[in-house]
């Protein structure tokens, strides 16, 4: 009995002790910059951890945002906003590639003693070649492989028939790439984090990727990464000399905290406990009203992402394959109320669109094809007349956020042209998996798509080229397979320079006007709230995120 009383007393004391300790404790130190401009610590809250810090494996947008500050790629996007920020420039490359052998050989000169890793070692052509060979190693199972399949010997490596791809090699201080077919967007592709150089004799080829510390020769290196908790980036001590003049690296250090809810991040931003982080969409209206837009605390920027309604060409309603039931597809584009659909995404969530190429992407031209101010029921009805084919539509959507409400608006809009829409909602992954499987019985599905890099190829060739339709895991969920447009898509992809963007701009107009395989309605905005101590705000339009190297502390 006495022992039990003792036990109870001790437990009580421990409990009270814990509460007292908690009550009297002071907050943990958090770094705050005192000087404006250069220096200080940038504090970032992120709802989720990086998927990886290994450039061969990372694919989350905030992982790429971080790697943009860590990697010295051969090509990169300039630290500029607007259209200037989406045209790639030479990074560590001494200039743009030289193409020979009818575009099948690409030679990229690398600047000597220009960029260095955090250990002081100079970056050479070998560092890039080693990293890219590693991307192809089957042990890595890297998503980069999908962007390297035109390289000679790549398939043999992926199929475990060869150890290295014969098409990638270092010759002197040049990277030489031999291709099996020309890749006109190669410069844009090489801006991706996948093509970050790797230090020394090569990183370990583990399928779960590398851990900190990691340097990719960029302005910062990953000093610490405690998975699911935090990460620390510090300035690369060898980011100096000529290369330092090409790119700002304002803060000394970046501290990430992972796993916080947007609601908590909003409160921390209000209290200046953190500088950057996502806030709940419901807070946007209040922030815009309180601080104004682009006045120092709340910023609005365009993203290269669009949301659209897909029409399935392998179903009787909108099919058959080829251009399909063009009258009805155009009728859908006239019938949808774009302002109402955009509103479902939230306050200031995006701009209305009737085109495939987003506003900020090279190749965008403003074509006036379908009504942006609201539905044109008269024109929609004229086009739909006699093309309804029974008028039953199965619409797939996802069951959270704007998924259900967008579907309801569409259901209401299409009733006006005699279409009876049955909504089926699923978990986001399930919806995509189902719609991506050929033969799935849906007529329309609701999707969003963002660019991996700033080139229209990432939209047209991926989403609308009939040649990539497969049994499952399709991204061409409209199953659009028009011989005429297939030829135009391939032709545009094989063209280089400004002519390429002109071709894509025309393709955008012709495809939406004459085939309308989808009904786009919104180009999304990034809605960014920052702390009072953050200055020099700059956005990276090609990545759709804040430019971490350009911002500074006040």
């Amino acid at each position: 009995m006495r022992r039990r009383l003792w036990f109870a007393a001790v437990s009580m004391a421990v409990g009270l002790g814990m509460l007292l300790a908690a009550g009297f404790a002071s907050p943990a130190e958090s770094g705050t910059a005192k000087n404006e401009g250069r220096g200080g610590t940038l504090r970032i809250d992120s709802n989720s951890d990086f998927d990886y810090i290994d450039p061969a494996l990372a694919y989350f947008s905030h992982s790429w945002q971080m790697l943009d500050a860590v990697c010295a790629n051969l090509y990169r996007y300039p630290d500029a906003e607007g259209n200037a920020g989406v045209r790639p420039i030479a990074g560590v490359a001494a200039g743009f590639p030289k193409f020979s052998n009818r575009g099948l050989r690409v030679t990229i000169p690398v600047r000597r003693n220009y960029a260095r890793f955090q250990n002081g070692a100079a970056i050479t052509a070998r560092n890039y070649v080693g990293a890219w060979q590693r991307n192809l190693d089957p042990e890595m199972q890297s998503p980069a492989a999908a962007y390297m399949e035109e390289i000679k010997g790549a398939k043999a490596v992926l199929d475990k028939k060869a150890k290295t791809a014969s098409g990638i090699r270092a010759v002197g201080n040049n990277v030489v790439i031999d291709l099996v077919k020309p890749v006109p967007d190669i410069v844009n592709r090489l801006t991706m984090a996948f093509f970050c150089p790797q230090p020394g004799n090569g990183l370990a080829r583990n399928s779960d990727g590398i851990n900190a510390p990691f340097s990719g020769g960029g302005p910062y290196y990953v000093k610490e990464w405690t998975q699911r908790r935090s990460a620390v980036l510090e300035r690369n001590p060898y980011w100096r000399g000529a290369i330092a003049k090409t790119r700002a690296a304002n803060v000394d250090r970046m501290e990430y905290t992972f796993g916080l809810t947007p609601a908590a991040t909003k409160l921390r931003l209000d209290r200046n406990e953190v500088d950057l982080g996502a806030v709940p969409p419901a807070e946007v209206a209040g922030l815009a009203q309180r601080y104004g837009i682009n006045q120092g605390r709340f910023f609005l920027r365009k993203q290269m992402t669009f949301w659209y309604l897909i029409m399935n060409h392998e179903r009787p309603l909108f099919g058959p394959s080829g251009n399909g039931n063009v009258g009805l597809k155009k009728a859908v584009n006239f019938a949808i109320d774009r302002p109402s659909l955009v509103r479902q995404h939230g306050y200031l969530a995006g701009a209305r669109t009737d085109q495939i190429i987003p506003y900020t992407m090279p190749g965008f031209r403003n074509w006036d094809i379908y009504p942006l101010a609201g539905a044109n029921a008269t024109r929609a009805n004229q086009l739909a007349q006699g093309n309804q084919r029974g008028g039953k539509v199965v619409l797939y959507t996802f069951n959270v956020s704007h998924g259900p409400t967008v579907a309801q608006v569409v259901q209401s809009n299409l009733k006006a042209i005699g279409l009876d829409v049955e909504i089926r909602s699923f978990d986001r992954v399930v919806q995509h998996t189902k719609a991506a499987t050929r033969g799935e019985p849906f007529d329309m599905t609701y999707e969003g798509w963002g660019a991996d890099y700033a080139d229209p190829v990432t939209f047209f060739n991926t989403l609308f080229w009939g040649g990539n339709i497969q049994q499952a895991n399709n991204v061409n969920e409209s199953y659009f397979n028009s011989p005429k447009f297939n030829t135009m898509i391939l032709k545009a992809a094989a063209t280089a320079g400004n002519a390429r963007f002109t071709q894509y701009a025309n393709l955008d107009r012709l495809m939406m006007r004459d085939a309308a395989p989808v009904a786009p309605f919104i180009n999304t905005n990034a809605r960014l709230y920052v702390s009072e101590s953050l200055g020099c705000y700059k956005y990276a339009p090609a990545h759709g995120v804040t430019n971490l190297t350009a911002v500074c502390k006040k």
Partner: protein
Amino acid sequence: MFRYLIRRLLWAIVLFVAVTVVTYVIFFVIPANPASRVCGKTCGPDDIKRAEKFLGVDKPVHIQYIRFLNRLLPFGRKEAEGQTGEYTGWGFKTPSLGNSYSTRREVNEVVLTAAPVTASLVFGGAVVWMLIALPLGILSALRPRSLLDRAGMVFVLVGISAHPVWIGLILAYVFGYKLGWTPITGYCDVINPATDCGGPVQWAYHMILPWITFAILFAALYVRMIRANVMETLSEDYVRTARAKGAPETRVIRSHVLRNALLPVVTMLGMDIGLALGGAIFTETVFGLPGLGQIALESITQFDLPITQGIVVFGTVCIITFNLIVDLLYAVIDPRIRLA
């Protein structure tokens, strides 16, 4: 006693297999291919086949389940490093829960890193809820229909009705944001800190709001249970006898009432702690605690079967273990119960 333990362990194995089979079946009924998430958004049929082989999802469900069981056993076919489904021979090996589909990290490591955070929340929360529930429940029972009793019942009503997410957000807003007495969110390790923030004081400072949030629901349930038990025991003959024999009221309450009234509380406490260890999802999410609940939520939304299965295994083991401890403890503290 020994036979009882053996019987319980055998039941535990049956329960374990049943729970893991159900988890597997549920995952495979849902049409989502983890391989397409691994190989990137533009991968072709060859890429998907390679990814399926890499993840080991190219085989039928029952083969995948057998592989899972084989990995869990300390003796069996040894898997080649990083090669799902390729074996180097038979022998002793480290039991493994496999690797995550989405981050490819070892599930053992993920679970073992997150478990102390959840344990901090649950055990600390249990102390807090007992500190609230014991005095409130006992005093309410001793003074029924008094002001304290009625206030206690209001607390019970609020505690049971209000969702932990709402309670957590309100507490974070009032005490973290408005008053600045506590951190709004975050976690510090109590020992071997993984970040700059660490040590018992910072740990407790960061955990106070999560403990209170987590404890409110359980405290409300326990207040009601303790109150009912104490009131029931107060009307027992042996209590009346003790009073008739002239025993002081404090002794009657301590030795005769509480000793009997609190026996079911021990059972409930053991079961609830075991259950909560499997996932304190809401509290962890609101306060950004990198525990099992948050990982479970992420793994379910990402269709990361190995992580989900790892947490299910961990939760099952916790519940089985705590139930066993409670049963054994019950026999010790209640002489009327004998295990056979």
